[in-house]
Protein backbone atom coordinates (compact mmCIF):
# COMPACT_ATOMS: atom_id res chain seq x y z
CA UNK A 1 0.00 0.00 0.00
CA UNK A 2 2.77 2.41 1.05
CA UNK A 3 4.66 1.60 -2.15
CA UNK A 4 1.56 2.29 -4.24
CA UNK A 5 1.08 5.72 -2.61
CA UNK A 6 4.72 6.56 -3.20
CA UNK A 7 4.45 5.44 -6.82
CA UNK A 8 1.39 7.63 -7.32
CA UNK A 9 3.15 10.61 -5.78
CA UNK A 10 6.17 10.09 -8.03
CA UNK A 11 3.87 9.80 -10.98
CA UNK A 12 1.97 12.98 -10.08
CA UNK A 13 5.22 14.85 -9.62
CA UNK A 14 6.41 13.66 -13.03
CA UNK A 15 3.16 14.65 -14.75
CA UNK A 16 3.24 18.06 -13.12
CA UNK A 17 6.79 18.72 -14.22
CA UNK A 18 5.97 17.40 -17.71
CA UNK A 19 2.98 19.74 -17.91
CA UNK A 20 5.13 22.65 -16.81
CA UNK A 21 7.67 21.87 -19.52
CA UNK A 22 4.92 21.62 -22.13
CA UNK A 23 2.92 24.72 -21.26
CA UNK A 24 5.89 27.03 -20.70
CA UNK A 25 7.55 26.18 -24.01
CA UNK A 26 7.86 29.42 -26.00
CA UNK A 27 6.84 27.77 -29.27
CA UNK A 28 3.66 26.31 -27.94
CA UNK A 29 2.31 23.05 -26.62
CA UNK A 30 3.21 20.76 -29.54
CA UNK A 31 6.82 21.89 -29.59
CA UNK A 32 6.80 21.67 -25.82
CA UNK A 33 5.67 18.04 -25.90
CA UNK A 34 8.39 17.25 -28.43
CA UNK A 35 11.00 19.11 -26.43
CA UNK A 36 13.78 17.43 -24.55
CA UNK A 37 12.63 18.69 -21.16
CA UNK A 38 9.19 17.11 -21.55
CA UNK A 39 10.39 13.90 -23.17
CA UNK A 40 12.83 13.24 -20.36
CA UNK A 41 9.85 13.07 -18.03
CA UNK A 42 7.21 11.45 -20.24
CA UNK A 43 8.19 10.39 -23.70
CA UNK A 44 4.86 11.17 -25.32
CA UNK A 45 5.64 13.75 -27.98
CA UNK A 46 3.00 15.63 -29.92
CA UNK A 47 1.58 12.45 -31.42
CA UNK A 48 0.81 10.87 -28.08
CA UNK A 49 -0.46 13.75 -25.99
CA UNK A 50 -3.69 11.95 -25.25
CA UNK A 51 -1.82 9.21 -23.45
CA UNK A 52 -1.23 11.81 -20.73
CA UNK A 53 -4.14 14.26 -21.02
CA UNK A 54 -7.51 13.03 -22.15
CA UNK A 55 -9.59 14.88 -24.70
CA UNK A 56 -12.87 16.50 -23.69
CA UNK A 57 -16.09 16.50 -25.66
CA UNK A 58 -15.09 19.64 -27.52
CA UNK A 59 -11.33 19.89 -27.23
CA UNK A 60 -8.38 17.68 -28.04
CA UNK A 61 -5.58 17.19 -25.53
CA UNK A 62 -3.37 19.77 -27.26
CA UNK A 63 -6.15 22.37 -27.17
CA UNK A 64 -6.79 21.72 -23.52
CA UNK A 65 -3.11 22.13 -22.69
CA UNK A 66 -2.92 25.23 -24.89
CA UNK A 67 -5.42 26.97 -22.62
CA UNK A 68 -2.91 26.73 -19.80
CA UNK A 69 0.05 27.52 -22.03
CA UNK A 70 -1.59 30.65 -23.38
CA UNK A 71 -2.91 31.73 -20.02
CA UNK A 72 0.54 31.24 -18.50
CA UNK A 73 2.17 33.73 -20.84
CA UNK A 74 -0.83 36.06 -20.92
CA UNK A 75 -0.71 36.32 -17.14
CA UNK A 76 3.01 36.86 -16.92
CA UNK A 77 3.02 39.43 -19.72
CA UNK A 78 0.22 41.26 -17.94
CA UNK A 79 2.25 41.23 -14.73
CA UNK A 80 5.32 42.66 -16.47
CA UNK A 81 3.06 45.37 -17.91
CA UNK A 82 1.76 46.21 -14.45
CA UNK A 83 5.29 46.92 -13.30
CA UNK A 84 6.12 49.13 -16.29
CA UNK A 85 2.83 50.93 -17.04
CA UNK A 86 4.31 54.10 -18.50
CA UNK A 87 6.80 52.25 -20.68
CA UNK A 88 3.91 50.12 -21.88
CA UNK A 89 1.90 53.17 -22.76
CA UNK A 90 4.81 54.80 -24.56
CA UNK A 91 5.53 51.67 -26.60
CA UNK A 92 1.93 50.65 -27.13
CA UNK A 93 0.43 47.38 -25.94
CA UNK A 94 1.54 45.26 -28.86
CA UNK A 95 5.17 46.30 -28.87
CA UNK A 96 5.44 46.19 -25.10
CA UNK A 97 3.94 42.71 -24.99
CA UNK A 98 6.49 41.62 -27.59
CA UNK A 99 9.28 42.80 -25.33
CA UNK A 100 7.69 41.15 -22.34
CA UNK A 101 7.31 37.84 -24.17
CA UNK A 102 10.92 37.94 -25.38
CA UNK A 103 12.00 38.84 -21.88
CA UNK A 104 10.21 35.86 -20.40
CA UNK A 105 12.11 33.59 -22.78
CA UNK A 106 15.44 35.13 -21.78
CA UNK A 107 14.62 35.35 -18.09
CA UNK A 108 11.93 32.77 -17.30
CA UNK A 109 9.96 33.15 -14.10
CA UNK A 110 11.75 31.01 -11.51
CA UNK A 111 10.65 32.42 -8.17
CA UNK A 112 7.63 31.41 -6.13
CA UNK A 113 6.53 35.04 -6.09
CA UNK A 114 5.84 37.35 -9.00
CA UNK A 115 7.38 40.21 -7.09
CA UNK A 116 10.69 39.69 -8.86
CA UNK A 117 9.32 38.93 -12.30
CA UNK A 118 10.56 42.22 -13.72
CA UNK A 119 13.89 42.38 -11.94
CA UNK A 120 15.97 41.65 -15.05
CA UNK A 121 13.86 43.57 -17.53
CA UNK A 122 16.26 46.51 -17.62
CA UNK A 123 19.19 44.13 -18.20
CA UNK A 124 17.22 42.47 -20.97
CA UNK A 125 16.56 45.79 -22.70
CA UNK A 126 20.23 46.71 -22.43
CA UNK A 127 21.34 43.36 -23.81
CA UNK A 128 18.99 43.45 -26.79
CA UNK A 129 19.07 47.12 -27.67
CA UNK A 130 20.22 47.95 -31.20
CA UNK A 131 23.89 48.83 -31.50
CA UNK A 132 24.42 52.57 -31.70
CA UNK A 133 25.29 53.95 -35.11
CA UNK A 134 28.94 53.59 -35.91
CA UNK A 135 30.97 56.50 -34.60
CA UNK A 136 28.02 57.80 -32.61
CA UNK A 137 28.52 57.48 -28.90
CA UNK A 138 25.65 59.78 -28.02
CA UNK A 139 22.58 58.47 -26.29
CA UNK A 140 19.60 57.71 -28.48
CA UNK A 141 15.91 56.78 -28.31
CA UNK A 142 16.67 53.30 -26.95
CA UNK A 143 18.31 54.94 -23.93
CA UNK A 144 15.09 56.84 -23.25
CA UNK A 145 13.17 53.57 -23.08
CA UNK A 146 15.81 51.98 -20.87
CA UNK A 147 15.82 55.02 -18.59
CA UNK A 148 12.07 54.78 -18.28
CA UNK A 149 12.31 51.09 -17.40
CA UNK A 150 14.95 51.88 -14.76
CA UNK A 151 12.73 54.55 -13.24
CA UNK A 152 9.66 52.34 -13.14
CA UNK A 153 11.52 49.38 -11.67
CA UNK A 154 13.02 51.64 -9.00
CA UNK A 155 9.56 52.98 -8.13
CA UNK A 156 8.32 49.41 -7.89
CA UNK A 157 11.17 48.35 -5.61
CA UNK A 158 10.83 51.40 -3.38
CA UNK A 159 7.10 50.79 -3.10
CA UNK A 160 7.59 47.18 -2.07
CA UNK A 161 10.76 47.46 -0.02
CA UNK A 162 11.37 48.74 3.48
CA UNK A 163 10.22 52.32 3.95
CA UNK A 164 10.50 54.96 6.62
CA UNK A 165 7.02 54.51 8.06
CA UNK A 166 8.05 52.56 11.11
CA UNK A 167 11.48 54.12 11.47
CA UNK A 168 12.24 56.80 13.96
CA UNK A 169 13.52 59.56 11.69
CA UNK A 170 15.83 62.41 12.56
CA UNK A 171 14.30 64.77 15.12
CA UNK A 172 15.28 68.13 16.53
CA UNK A 173 16.47 66.62 19.78
CA UNK A 174 18.92 64.41 17.90
CA UNK A 175 20.85 67.34 16.48
CA UNK A 176 20.04 70.31 18.68
CA UNK A 177 23.27 70.00 20.64
CA UNK A 178 25.65 69.72 17.73
CA UNK A 179 28.52 72.21 17.93
CA UNK A 180 28.52 74.36 14.77
CA UNK A 181 32.14 73.39 14.16
CA UNK A 182 31.22 69.73 14.24
CA UNK A 183 28.78 69.64 11.33
CA UNK A 184 31.60 68.92 8.91
CA UNK A 185 32.12 65.50 10.44
CA UNK A 186 28.49 64.56 10.95
CA UNK A 187 27.19 61.55 9.05
CA UNK A 188 23.53 61.66 8.08
CA UNK A 189 22.24 58.16 7.48
CA UNK A 190 19.79 57.67 4.67
CA UNK A 191 17.05 55.02 4.62
CA UNK A 192 17.19 52.02 2.28
CA UNK A 193 14.26 53.35 0.31
CA UNK A 194 16.20 56.40 -0.87
CA UNK A 195 17.37 55.69 -4.40
CA UNK A 196 19.44 58.07 -6.50
CA UNK A 197 19.42 57.81 -10.27
CA UNK A 198 21.46 59.41 -13.00
CA UNK A 199 19.65 59.29 -16.33
CA UNK A 200 20.44 60.12 -19.94
CA UNK A 201 17.06 61.84 -20.40
CA UNK A 202 14.82 63.99 -18.17
CA UNK A 203 12.85 60.83 -17.65
CA UNK A 204 11.20 61.75 -14.35
CA UNK A 205 9.48 64.72 -15.98
CA UNK A 206 8.59 62.59 -18.99
CA UNK A 207 7.10 59.95 -16.69
CA UNK A 208 4.99 62.59 -14.94
CA UNK A 209 3.86 64.09 -18.23
CA UNK A 210 2.79 60.72 -19.63
CA UNK A 211 0.92 59.80 -16.46
CA UNK A 212 -0.82 63.14 -16.29
CA UNK A 213 -1.82 63.16 -19.95
CA UNK A 214 -4.89 61.79 -21.59
CA UNK A 215 -4.53 58.14 -22.65
CA UNK A 216 -4.80 59.00 -26.33
CA UNK A 217 -2.41 61.93 -26.26
CA UNK A 218 1.09 61.48 -27.62
CA UNK A 219 3.55 63.07 -25.21
CA UNK A 220 6.53 64.76 -26.83
CA UNK A 221 9.72 62.82 -26.46
CA UNK A 222 12.26 64.84 -24.53
CA UNK A 223 15.70 65.76 -25.82
CA UNK A 224 18.58 63.88 -24.27
CA UNK A 225 19.84 65.78 -21.22
CA UNK A 226 21.50 64.16 -18.23
CA UNK A 227 19.07 64.25 -15.32
CA UNK A 228 19.17 63.27 -11.67
CA UNK A 229 16.33 61.86 -9.63
CA UNK A 230 15.82 60.86 -6.02
CA UNK A 231 13.11 58.32 -5.22
CA UNK A 232 11.96 57.60 -1.71
CA UNK A 233 8.86 56.59 0.24
CA UNK A 234 7.02 58.39 2.98
CA UNK A 235 3.62 57.52 4.45
CA UNK A 236 3.49 54.57 2.02
CA UNK A 237 3.61 56.83 -1.00
CA UNK A 238 6.54 56.75 -3.40
CA UNK A 239 7.96 60.25 -3.87
CA UNK A 240 10.02 61.37 -6.81
CA UNK A 241 12.27 64.43 -6.72
CA UNK A 242 14.19 66.01 -9.56
CA UNK A 243 17.69 66.85 -8.41
CA UNK A 244 20.36 69.17 -9.71
CA UNK A 245 23.83 67.75 -10.25
CA UNK A 246 25.23 69.35 -7.03
CA UNK A 247 22.30 67.94 -5.03
CA UNK A 248 22.86 64.51 -6.54
CA UNK A 249 26.59 64.55 -5.73
CA UNK A 250 25.87 65.63 -2.17
CA UNK A 251 23.29 62.96 -1.51
CA UNK A 252 25.38 60.31 -3.22
CA UNK A 253 28.24 60.83 -0.77
CA UNK A 254 25.92 60.95 2.23
CA UNK A 255 24.21 57.78 1.07
CA UNK A 256 27.58 56.05 0.70
CA UNK A 257 28.35 56.89 4.34
CA UNK A 258 30.44 60.01 3.84
CA UNK A 259 30.37 62.90 6.30
CA UNK A 260 28.74 66.24 5.48
CA UNK A 261 32.18 67.74 4.81
CA UNK A 262 32.99 65.08 2.23
CA UNK A 263 29.60 65.49 0.62
CA UNK A 264 30.04 69.24 0.39
CA UNK A 265 33.44 68.75 -1.20
CA UNK A 266 31.95 66.52 -3.90
CA UNK A 267 29.21 69.05 -4.40
CA UNK A 268 31.62 71.96 -4.78
CA UNK A 269 33.48 70.14 -7.51
CA UNK A 270 30.49 70.52 -9.81
CA UNK A 271 29.62 74.11 -8.89
CA UNK A 272 31.31 76.98 -10.71
CA UNK A 273 33.18 79.62 -8.71
CA UNK A 274 30.61 82.30 -9.47
CA UNK A 275 27.84 80.15 -8.02
CA UNK A 276 29.55 79.46 -4.71
CA UNK A 277 27.83 82.30 -2.84
CA UNK A 278 24.47 81.02 -3.98
CA UNK A 279 25.50 77.53 -2.90
CA UNK A 280 25.79 78.81 0.65
CA UNK A 281 22.13 79.80 0.54
CA UNK A 282 20.97 76.71 -1.34
CA UNK A 283 22.69 74.18 0.89
CA UNK A 284 20.71 75.27 3.92
CA UNK A 285 17.44 74.98 2.00
CA UNK A 286 18.35 71.58 0.58
CA UNK A 287 19.23 70.07 3.93
CA UNK A 288 16.10 71.54 5.43
CA UNK A 289 13.94 70.02 2.68
CA UNK A 290 15.62 66.63 2.79
CA UNK A 291 15.32 66.41 6.55
CA UNK A 292 11.65 67.33 6.50
CA UNK A 293 11.11 64.82 3.68
CA UNK A 294 12.58 62.13 5.96
CA UNK A 295 15.68 61.48 3.91
CA UNK A 296 17.74 61.04 7.08
CA UNK A 297 17.02 58.83 10.04
CA UNK A 298 20.13 59.21 12.12
CA UNK A 299 23.04 61.60 12.67
CA UNK A 300 26.33 60.22 13.95
CA UNK A 301 29.81 61.50 14.34
CA UNK A 302 33.03 59.58 13.85
CA UNK A 303 36.66 60.15 14.63
CA UNK A 304 37.46 63.45 12.93
CA UNK A 305 37.02 65.79 15.87
CA UNK A 306 38.03 63.62 18.72
CA UNK A 307 34.87 61.62 19.25
CA UNK A 308 36.52 58.46 18.11
CA UNK A 309 33.73 55.92 18.28
CA UNK A 310 34.06 53.07 15.89
CA UNK A 311 30.34 52.57 15.47
CA UNK A 312 29.45 56.23 15.48
CA UNK A 313 27.67 58.16 18.19
CA UNK A 314 24.04 59.10 18.34
CA UNK A 315 23.32 62.68 19.34
Amino acid at each position, binding site marked *: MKEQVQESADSLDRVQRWMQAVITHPEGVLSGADGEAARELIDAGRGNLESVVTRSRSLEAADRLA*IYANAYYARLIECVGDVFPVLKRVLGDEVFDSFAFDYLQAYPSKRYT*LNYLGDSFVDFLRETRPDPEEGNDEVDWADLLIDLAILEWT*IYEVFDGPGTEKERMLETGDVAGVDPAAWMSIHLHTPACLQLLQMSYPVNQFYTAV*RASDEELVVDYPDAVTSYVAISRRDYIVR*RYDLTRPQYELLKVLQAGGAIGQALEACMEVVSDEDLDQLLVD*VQQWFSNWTSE*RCFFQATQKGEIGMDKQDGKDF
Partner: protein
Amino acid sequence: MNEKQESSIHDQSRRDFFNKLAVAAGGGVLLGAAGVARAADEKSPLLTDPHTCKGLNTCKGKGAGGKNDCAGQGACATAEKHSCHGHNACKGQGGCGSSAGQNACKGKGECSVPLGKKTWKSTRKAFEAAAKKAGIKVGPAPK
Protein backbone atom coordinates in the same frame (compact mmCIF):
# COMPACT_ATOMS: atom_id res chain seq x y z
CA MET B 1 53.70 87.56 -1.07
CA ASN B 2 55.31 84.32 -2.09
CA GLU B 3 53.63 81.30 -3.60
CA LYS B 4 53.56 79.47 -0.31
CA GLN B 5 51.82 82.36 1.45
CA GLU B 6 49.28 82.70 -1.36
CA SER B 7 48.57 79.01 -1.14
CA SER B 8 48.16 79.26 2.60
CA ILE B 9 45.64 82.11 2.28
CA HIS B 10 43.80 80.15 -0.37
CA ASP B 11 43.68 77.12 1.92
CA GLN B 12 42.46 79.26 4.77
CA SER B 13 39.63 80.84 2.76
CA ARG B 14 38.69 77.47 1.37
CA ARG B 15 38.52 76.05 4.90
CA ASP B 16 36.46 79.03 6.02
CA PHE B 17 34.07 78.61 3.15
CA PHE B 18 33.74 74.90 3.86
CA ASN B 19 33.02 75.63 7.48
CA LYS B 20 30.32 78.11 6.48
CA LEU B 21 28.83 75.56 4.12
CA ALA B 22 28.82 72.88 6.81
CA VAL B 23 27.16 75.25 9.28
CA ALA B 24 24.58 76.13 6.62
CA ALA B 25 23.94 72.43 6.07
CA GLY B 26 23.58 71.90 9.81
CA GLY B 27 21.22 74.85 10.04
CA GLY B 28 19.17 73.25 7.31
CA VAL B 29 19.03 69.96 9.17
CA LEU B 30 17.83 71.77 12.31
CA LEU B 31 15.18 73.67 10.34
CA GLY B 32 14.00 70.50 8.63
CA ALA B 33 13.89 68.54 11.88
CA ALA B 34 11.79 71.29 13.44
CA GLY B 35 9.47 71.05 10.44
CA VAL B 36 9.13 67.29 10.96
CA ALA B 37 8.15 67.90 14.58
CA ARG B 38 5.50 70.42 13.56
CA ALA B 39 4.14 68.11 10.86
CA ALA B 40 3.94 65.23 13.35
CA ASP B 41 1.84 67.39 15.65
CA GLU B 42 -0.56 68.23 12.86
CA LYS B 43 -0.71 64.79 11.30
CA SER B 44 -4.04 63.22 10.51
CA PRO B 45 -4.63 59.96 12.40
CA LEU B 46 -5.30 58.34 9.04
CA LEU B 47 -1.75 58.98 7.95
CA THR B 48 -0.29 57.47 11.06
CA ASP B 49 -2.13 54.26 10.46
CA PRO B 50 0.42 51.90 8.96
CA HIS B 51 -2.25 50.43 6.76
CA THR B 52 -2.91 53.61 4.87
CA CYS B 53 -3.04 52.95 1.19
CA LYS B 54 -0.49 50.19 0.91
CA GLY B 55 -1.55 47.90 3.68
CA LEU B 56 -5.24 48.20 3.14
CA ASN B 57 -4.91 47.98 -0.61
CA THR B 58 -7.60 50.59 -0.97
CA CYS B 59 -5.67 52.06 -3.83
CA LYS B 60 -5.16 48.92 -5.81
CA GLY B 61 -8.15 47.72 -7.68
CA LYS B 62 -10.54 50.29 -6.31
CA GLY B 63 -11.55 53.66 -7.69
CA ALA B 64 -12.85 54.20 -11.18
CA GLY B 65 -10.19 53.28 -13.69
CA GLY B 66 -7.71 52.92 -10.88
CA LYS B 67 -7.62 56.71 -10.50
CA ASN B 68 -7.93 57.52 -6.86
CA ASP B 69 -6.22 59.71 -4.35
CA CYS B 70 -2.95 57.93 -4.59
CA ALA B 71 -2.78 57.34 -8.30
CA GLY B 72 -1.45 60.75 -9.15
CA GLN B 73 1.32 60.50 -6.64
CA GLY B 74 3.36 57.82 -8.22
CA ALA B 75 2.89 55.01 -5.81
CA CYS B 76 -0.28 53.23 -6.52
CA ALA B 77 0.12 52.49 -10.16
CA THR B 78 2.86 50.15 -9.16
CA ALA B 79 0.52 48.62 -6.65
CA GLU B 80 -1.58 47.18 -9.43
CA LYS B 81 0.92 44.38 -9.62
CA HIS B 82 -0.61 42.96 -6.51
CA SER B 83 -3.71 42.07 -8.41
CA CYS B 84 -1.50 39.45 -10.01
CA HIS B 85 0.30 38.45 -6.89
CA GLY B 86 -2.75 37.90 -4.82
CA HIS B 87 -4.70 36.02 -7.40
CA ASN B 88 -2.11 34.37 -9.50
CA ALA B 89 -3.14 30.90 -8.60
CA CYS B 90 -6.63 31.32 -9.93
CA LYS B 91 -6.35 34.13 -12.40
CA GLY B 92 -5.55 32.23 -15.54
CA GLN B 93 -7.52 29.18 -14.57
CA GLY B 94 -10.83 30.73 -13.70
CA GLY B 95 -12.99 31.04 -16.71
CA CYS B 96 -10.79 28.93 -18.90
CA GLY B 97 -13.36 26.19 -19.18
CA SER B 98 -16.19 28.41 -20.26
CA SER B 99 -14.18 30.80 -22.38
CA ALA B 100 -11.48 28.60 -23.67
CA GLY B 101 -11.58 30.10 -27.11
CA GLN B 102 -10.93 33.61 -25.95
CA ASN B 103 -8.14 32.57 -23.73
CA ALA B 104 -6.40 30.57 -26.38
CA CYS B 105 -6.80 33.40 -28.83
CA LYS B 106 -5.27 35.93 -26.49
CA GLY B 107 -2.35 33.71 -25.73
CA LYS B 108 -1.66 32.97 -29.34
CA GLY B 109 -1.51 36.66 -30.02
CA GLU B 110 1.20 37.02 -27.47
CA CYS B 111 3.16 34.07 -28.69
CA SER B 112 3.29 34.89 -32.36
CA VAL B 113 5.28 38.02 -31.92
CA PRO B 114 8.80 38.18 -33.33
CA LEU B 115 11.73 37.68 -31.06
CA GLY B 116 14.87 39.62 -30.16
CA LYS B 117 16.02 42.49 -32.31
CA LYS B 118 12.89 42.36 -34.43
CA THR B 119 11.03 43.72 -31.44
CA TRP B 120 13.35 46.68 -31.30
CA LYS B 121 12.71 47.24 -35.02
CA SER B 122 8.99 47.42 -34.45
CA THR B 123 9.70 49.64 -31.45
CA ARG B 124 11.66 51.97 -33.65
CA LYS B 125 8.72 52.15 -36.04
CA ALA B 126 6.34 52.92 -33.20
CA PHE B 127 8.79 55.49 -31.90
CA GLU B 128 9.12 57.18 -35.29
CA ALA B 129 5.35 57.21 -35.76
CA ALA B 130 4.78 58.75 -32.35
CA ALA B 131 7.56 61.28 -32.89
CA LYS B 132 6.12 62.24 -36.28
CA LYS B 133 2.68 62.71 -34.77
CA ALA B 134 4.19 64.91 -32.10
CA GLY B 135 6.12 66.88 -34.73
CA ILE B 136 9.52 65.74 -33.51
CA LYS B 137 12.37 64.90 -35.84
CA VAL B 138 14.27 61.77 -34.97
CA GLY B 139 17.65 60.78 -36.28
CA PRO B 140 18.28 57.74 -38.45
CA ALA B 141 17.84 54.38 -36.79
CA PRO B 142 20.94 52.50 -35.72
CA LYS B 143 21.72 49.49 -37.92
